[in-house]
């Protein structure tokens, strides 16, 4: 057996085993799950050097899995994130019931993702796509009754996506009689233009649903919100990246072969841009931390899609860079939120506040997370954003760059609100007894925080595998050094200098201000504040959280008026109503049914020749 076989085998068998173990030896369950994900990680790394290939014949198809640089990139992402989230889940989930179900589906989702990224043919891709989808669906509805409609919405959208994938696959099969990726890629230019266009559109639609691009995103906020936090981290960090994985593949392996590629690029890039902007605006007005992060996630995927769609080397690099980074920082943020939830039982930003001194590590994680999201140097987010802007400007997408910039500036708003509401502000009595999350939850968060810091200083570390996978996607070369980024005009940003400067100034001034009058500097509680002479009462609410961005909301009110979600709900309701009318043909009267038969008979007789032809 080679590594890929091990990975698939271990994950799926492990998934089944955890379910059984949960009922037999509940104590071993978590250990087993962690072990499975650790083994996966080991074999994923093993697979990189091994160059494994697996061929499995099932039905009439050859299912092929192979390692390519592009596959490895995503596989490592999944493996690392999977391991950390399962580690995190151990304590987070400890008080929940139905853990066998949870871990089984968690591992199924992981296994589905491995199957997708390594697949070299569309059947296995679709097969595992579906497994991943239903495993994640089962995790979305895991919590409670309220999750059911949300889960159903997620499933319906996933099904629409999956089935448009399937239509494309079926079309490809009927066009070329084969579903192996390498074959299809080389055959693709032989298809007629309209077929090419339909296939590409359908594939993009299918992958786009998973990556929640704008008109198809409505499942995401609810699903991210309601799923248990360890899974949300994986969901947003890795699972949604499967869409990105597919889009990258479709764009550069298929669409790039045809003449209308530039139109596809522009449309997709603008969809990404609008996604980023609107999702950011929606995120600003959420009152729940997880929903806020969910919208943020949609927005970030918008950037990634822009990067892929632009298709210059620098932009693809930025997209892939952001893909990895987003996995890290969104996992960090969801984990930090999860830690808050674990201790306080809520993620409502209007009720939680002032946890910074109670949960310092969660705060640091959240802080690093938001700095990375915002793209402020010196953390990793800056490198990604920088490459994106440079490539947008240099590929002459002038207005798109404005949209993107507006989106990422507006992102400061929700990011600040996120960290302010949960960790800063008044330290209220209600949360006096809150403690830091358990060690096993803190460790993954800190590991990821360290990662974003290192990547921020040395983006080259990640750009190495990225440039390899870009060479797999096409002939994309770009210039970079371990800590220096270059744009296409040759201008540079030297992260080392930047970090040194920031670090030095910060340290010097920080030390001065700390030690100047150190003994006379007092800490006072947050009740001891300037309130224009009035002394705040013990139980007086001094937290400013509700309607935090009311002025901004007033400013952009026209944009927020329309809701895509409502349109979909309307359509769904009307359809159900229509279906409801339709079943009234079954009147319940036997005679009516007999009438149908006779009516159908006479209809057929009347139009016999028309229907059955004369060459019977």
């Amino acid at each position, binding site marked *: 057996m080679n590594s890929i076989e091990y990975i698939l085998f271990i994950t799926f068998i492990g998934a089944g085993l955890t379910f059984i173990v949960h009922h037999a030896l509940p104590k071993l369950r978590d250990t087993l799950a962690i072990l499975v994900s650790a083994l996966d990680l080991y074999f994923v790394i093993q697979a990189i050097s091994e160059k494994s290939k697996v061929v499995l014949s099932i039905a009439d198809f050859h299912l092929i899995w192979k390692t390519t640089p592009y596959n490895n990139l995503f596989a490592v992402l999944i493996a690392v994130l999977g391991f950390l989230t399962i580690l995190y889940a151990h304590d987070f989930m400890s008080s929940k019931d139905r853990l066998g179900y949870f871990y089984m589906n968690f591992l199924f989702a992981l296994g589905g993702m491995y199957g997708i990224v390594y697949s070299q043919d569309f059947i296995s891709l679709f097969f595992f796509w579906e497994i991943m989808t239903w495993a994640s669906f089962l995790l979305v509805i895991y919590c409670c009754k309220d999750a059911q409609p949300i889960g159903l919405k997620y499933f319906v959208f996933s099904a629409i996506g999956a089935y448009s994938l399937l239509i494309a696959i079926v079309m490809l099969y009927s066009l070329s009689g084969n579903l192996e990726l390498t074959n299809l890629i080389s055959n693709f230019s032989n298809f007629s233009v309209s077929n090419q266009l339909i296939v590409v559109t359908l594939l993009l639609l299918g992958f786009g649903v998973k990556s929640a691009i704008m008109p198809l995103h409505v499942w995401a906020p609810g699903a991210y919100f309601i799923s248990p936090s360890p899974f949300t981290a994986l969901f947003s960090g890795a699972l949604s990246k499967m869409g990105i994985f597919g889009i990258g593949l479709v764009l550069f392996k298929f669409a790039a072969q045809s003449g209308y590629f530039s139109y596809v690029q522009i449309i997709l890039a603008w969809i990404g841009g609008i996604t980023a902007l609107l999702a950011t605006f929606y995120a600003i007005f959420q009152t729940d931390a997880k929903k806020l992060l969910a919208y943020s996630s949609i927005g970030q995927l918008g950037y990634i899609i822009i990067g892929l769609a632009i298709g210059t080397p620098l932009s693809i690099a930025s997209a892939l860079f952001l893909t990895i980074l987003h996995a890290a920082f969104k996992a960090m943020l969801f984990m930090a939120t999860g830690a808050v939830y674990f201790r306080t039982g809520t993620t409502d930003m209007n009720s939680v506040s002032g946890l910074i001194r109670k949960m310092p590590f969660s705060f640091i994680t959240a802080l690093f997370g938001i700095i990375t999201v915002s793209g402020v140097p010196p953390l990793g987010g800056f490198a990604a954003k920088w490459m994106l802007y440079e490539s947008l400007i240099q590929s002459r997408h002038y207005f798109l760059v404005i949209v993107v910039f507006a989106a990422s500036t507006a992102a400061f*708003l929700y990011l600040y609100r996120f960290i302010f509401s949960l960790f800063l502000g*008044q330290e209220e009595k209600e949360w006096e007894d809150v403690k830091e999350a358990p060690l096993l939850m803190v460790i993954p968060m800190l590991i990821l925080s360290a990662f974003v810091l290192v990547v921020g200083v040395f983006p080259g570390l990640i750009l190495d595998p990225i440039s390899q996978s870009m060479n797999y996607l096409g002939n994309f070369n770009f210039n970079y050094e371990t800590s220096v980024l270059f744009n296409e005009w040759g201008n*540079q940003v030297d992260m080392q200098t930047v970090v040194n400067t920031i670090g030095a100034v910060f340290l010097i001034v920080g030390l001065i201000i700390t030690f100047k009058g150190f003994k006379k500097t007092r800490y006072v509680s947050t009740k001891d504040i300037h309130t224009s002479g009035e002394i705040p009462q013990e139980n007086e609410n001094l*937290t400013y959280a509700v309607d935090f961005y009311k002025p901004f909301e007033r400013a952009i009110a026209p944009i927020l008026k329309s809701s895509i979600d409502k349109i979909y709900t309307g359509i769904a309701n009307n359809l159900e109503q229509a279906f409801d009318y339709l079943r009234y043909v079954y009147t319940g009267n036997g005679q009516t049914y007999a009438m149908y038969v006779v009516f159908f008979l006479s209809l057929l007789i009347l139009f016999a020749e028309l229907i059955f032809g004369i060459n019977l």
Partner: protein
Amino acid sequence: MEINWSTILGIIFTPIIAFIVGVTYGGLTRVITARVQNRYGPPIFQNLLDIIKLYSKESNINHGVMQHLGPVFAITASVTTLFFVPVIKDSTVFTNFSFHGDLIFLLYIMVFGSLGMALGAGQTGNPNSAIGVSRGLSQLVGYEVPFVMALVAIMIQFQTTNLNDLLAVQDHFTKWIIFQSPFAFLAAILAFLGMMGYAPFDVVIAPAEIASGPPSEFGGKYLGLMLTSRSIFTFAKLVLFTDIFLGGASDFITLLIKTFILYMIPVLTGIVFPRYRTEQSIRFFWSWPLFFGIIAILVVVF
């Protein structure tokens, strides 16, 4: 690593010069405002005296580590911005690190300080601070958009994102970008009004309404540090605008003249205008400045 004395000199002297100039400009503002309003006003060095007084306060209070670090974030951003802007054109000393960063980097490092301050202000638990931050960030979204449009227009026009390259282009005063790309300048200077935070865009600190907003809980060494940072940052921004639009400066006299002229624009506007509400100012930035920005880009494209 070989020791580069000019760099070290630059690192030491640039912040000091920036601080002195910034503080003096701050004092001048108060004088000018007073004169316009038919008052006598404080001495020019009042701001410097204030800062010295604040530093010399013996006892200080804070509400936690983020408040403690907030001003540090702010000054880090100010100084870093300053280091990545070529203060004196073609000078080996005052170019600092401007070759190692570009305009987009500057855009981001410029908000670094405000965000750090916002975090510090947030921890104080003073609702007024939070309200101020909310307003400030909203306004930030407002003016960043036209500003970026102006920058994008310029970047496209001159095919560079580095300030030194832009300086190299403007070797004669007819080639100053203010003349080559007037709409970009218009968009940028209107955004600059917001950036400086004078009236009509001073809703963030609105002293009478929300007790100065974000800085309201800061005192002593913290406030001193903030004011220091503010002075340096003002100078850095002025130099940046001078470099972009007015062809930079080859010596200090020119630099002072150009920056002073630029500086007077927000100051004088601030004296004559009343205060905008947050949504009004956002709408303002998204009307004329945005329009100028679009024109600027369209002009470049066609």
